[in-house]
């Protein structure tokens, strides 16, 4: 009898912190959605409660008066370009490192992987001048290139470990059939790696969509602002204009694509990130 009561008590006892933490995570996010539907006056009078009525004026304001439309467009451009570039650069390298025997392949892999642990903030100063020399400063393509290279080590890491699981026989028989190594890479390896390519691309896309600091350094004009910069700008302006509703609306716009991706690919994202951490 005693044995049965105790675990039940412990179980409820342990549930309490779990529930509290779940509230701590969800409440600010839900509150942000609610805030985006409130008028500024209501945010002041009743900051943490439910809205009296739903109005989408904040979204319209953010979209038209605060140039969020341009920033969304810029963020999409940078994210898509960055994602594509990362793949184009990482796929051949990952294949060569994983499947072709050559001197120094181990060293090359180590160089890429150790770049994942190095604080890049030192490199950002010379990179700033480098981009200036290349005429890529304050340029969305320049930022996409910088993003792509920054995610290269992680992408190579994920792709090599996945390609290791593809059976070698497939390449051998393709080569017997007269397919060149270029053909094997393009027609055999790339399609077979689709799972890994999707996982790594989603994670890169989220990374680029969310990125703030490199954009802060390498972009300057407001027409080039990505979402993070635009929101930060609205946030610092809101200290004076009190346009909190607009700020919440733009935060909501920034987070919705991430929530959608997470809803669809939750397992892959979680798995990809934990595996990325384990190599560390």
């Amino acid at each position: 009898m005693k044995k049965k009561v105790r675990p039940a008590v412990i179980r409820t006892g342990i549930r309490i912190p779990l529930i509290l933490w779940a509230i701590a995570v969800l409440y600010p996010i839900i509150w942000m959605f609610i805030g985006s539907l409130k008028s500024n006056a209501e945010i002041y009078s009743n900051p943490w409660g439910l809205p009296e009525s739903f109005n989408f004026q904040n979204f319209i304001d953010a979209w038209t008066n605060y140039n969020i439309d341009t920033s969304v467009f810029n963020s999409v451009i940078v994210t898509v370009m960055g994602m594509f570039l990362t793949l184009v650069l990482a796929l051949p390298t990952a294949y060569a490192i994983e499947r072709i025997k050559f001197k120094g392949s181990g060293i090359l892999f180590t160089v890429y992987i150790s770049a994942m642990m190095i604080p890049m903030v030192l490199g950002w100063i010379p990179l700033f001048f480098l981009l200036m020399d290349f005429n890529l400063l304050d340029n969305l393509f320049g930022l996409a290139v910088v993003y792509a290279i920054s995610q290269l080590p992680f992408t190579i890491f994920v792709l090599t470990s996945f390609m290791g699981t593809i059976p070698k026989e497939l390449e051998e028989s393709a080569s017997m059939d007269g397919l060149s190594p270029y053909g094997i890479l393009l027609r055999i390896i790339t399609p077979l790696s689709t799972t890994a390519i999707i996982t790594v691309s989603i994670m890169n896309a989220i990374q680029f969509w969310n990125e703030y600091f490199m954009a802060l350094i390498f972009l300057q004009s407001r027409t080039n602002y990505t979402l993070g910069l635009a929101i930060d700008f609205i946030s610092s302006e809101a200290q004076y204009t009190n346009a909190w509703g607009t700020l919440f609306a733009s935060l909501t716009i920034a987070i919705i694509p991430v929530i959608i991706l997470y809803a669809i690919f939750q397992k892959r994202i979680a798995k990809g990130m934990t595996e990325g951490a384990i190599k560390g």
Partner: protein
Amino acid sequence: MVQSKKQKYVFLAFCLVPTFILFSIFTLYPLFSGLYFSFFEWSGSSSNREFIGLSNYERLFQDKIFPRTILHDYFLVVTKVIGIMILAIFFAVALTQLKIKEAPFYRVVFFFPNIMSVVVIGILWTFIYNPSLGLVNSGLEFMGLGEWARPWLGDENWALPSLVLPSIWAGIGLFMLLLIGGISNVSKSYYEAAEIDGANEWQQFWKVTLPLIWPQIKISILYIVITTLNGSFIIVQIMTGGGPNNSTHVMGSYLYQQAFVQYNFGYGATIGVVILILSLITVLILQFLMKREKVQY
């Protein structure tokens, strides 16, 4: 594969060279070049770049703010490691050992902040700490602890500790999942054996679970330390900008201010070199300290 040596090398070059050249230009070159810049006094225009040897490094020692930024960095490292590890271990054990039906819900929810933008996290938490509207102060007043209410991010003593909670909030899910992975690899027979020996749940946790997930704990700690030293300045920049009165500046945000706000690029690079050296040393020391052998039963 039937192909000549030459063909093989051409293919290898096709695969490796373009990527490596870009990687060298955008990652390797800037790092070395940053080291080189640290020996110059330089405000950005190419004409007035002056070699000054180690003067920037000497200046670091006279700088009244810089030593504080190092302390702030390590304050965040220590508090984050302790906070995240205690909570992540607790949640991981709770979700695996207690067979709760809604466990997947918690996993999905707790992990989500890991993929949120730091901008969103920073702005949300700035609101939570807002002196008049914020959740923290309203909550304290609600509980009758009104005298505890303060402008958290505007208070020199409280601003830095206030940054710890958002960082833990944002980071915990990943490490919880990492530890869950470790725990589910522990064979059930160990727990059965421990139970036969009369060990209670608490003893089982200390003697079985903890030693067996030590590799995951080690990785988590290392990862928290690295990401904090390399990236804590982002949340600082968004939530406080290093203020009030430099009380929250960490090395990275101070570098940003020196280089990109005040245009002391040489001095900024010097700070960057110190960040690089300190984080490498910290990781090496940690790896040495945690070199506890894998437990095998």
